């Protein structure tokens, strides 16, 4: 069931986010109105992360199944069950996202 411990993490994130808001607006002079577009960018990056993850998994699964049928050698699909694939997808998504934004700016 859901208990108190579950919400320690989100509470910490809320506190540090509030701190970042204060530092951003008061120390760095960032406009508060920029937060909503920034959140939109964050959602785009996460969306791209999912796209890259799905691509990596789909291509990986297709290659493994093709390898099995062509060579007859067994390779488990479970080798794709690896968290590092998610980390790589994150890197791909961030690079692609920045590249995309930069490309749009220079058009």
């Amino acid at each position: 069931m859901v208990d108190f411990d579950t919400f320690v993490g989100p509470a910490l994130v809320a506190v540090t986010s509030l701190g970042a808001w204060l530092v951003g607006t008061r120390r760095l002079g960032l406009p508060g109105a920029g937060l909503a577009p920034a959140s939109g960018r964050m959602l785009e990056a996460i969306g791209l992360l999912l796209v890259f993850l799905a691509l990596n998994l789909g291509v990986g699964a297709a290659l493994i199944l093709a390898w099995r049928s062509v060579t007859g050698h067994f390779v488990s699909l479970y080798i794709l069950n690896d968290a590092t694939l998610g980390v790589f997808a994150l890197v791909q998504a961030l690079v692609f996202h920045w590249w995309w934004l930069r490309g749009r700016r220079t058009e």
Partner: protein
Amino acid sequence: MPCAHDLAHHRCVSSPRVLPDGKRSRALRLLGAVVLLLLGVGGFTPLANGLNRWMAGPSELKPAQAIVVPGRGGSDSDEVLTNASLRRTLRAIALQQQGLSPLIVFSGENLEVDARVQLARGLGIAAESLLPAYGGRTTREEAVLIEGLLKPRGVQRILLVADSIDMPRARALFEARGFTVLGGQTWDGGPSDPESRLHLLREIAIELSAWCYYRLRGWI
């Protein structure tokens, strides 16, 4: 001119092209929002636990002609069973000792099967009550192997001992081969911390993908 639509407002130009293509951008934002929502709900509510229990179906600990224990993760390099494999093995041994079945079938990788048999023998299960099924590399291969071992013995009703997460596909495979399957899930409660719930959610996604693949191939 500062641009309120972007983080890097000092560098952006006041052109509608500053923002990525509208439709693609909206689709990605929607996708991102869905991911975040899923992470929030999956990590901080018992959704994954409930989904896992629902997918596993009912637990029916009743007498059967054989207790079937598919492989799970094999054994570590020191030939000790993995946590999940050990949990299933101990559960099957306990059910056999309760008198629910005269026979236990252990399948999986060869080392895993050997380690399971050895453990069962050490815990007092008679050799004639153990039926090792060697060589199954996938759940489907295990089901085919076990069918070949049990059908000649006239076994029709089996008690399937597996984790809840593995139950839907394993159950469907054995049912497709004409067995009456009773569920003997090893664990019903599910995790209670966010990280473990998200891990379970990932396993559910994997299991659903595998289920769809088996379905597409006509195996279940």
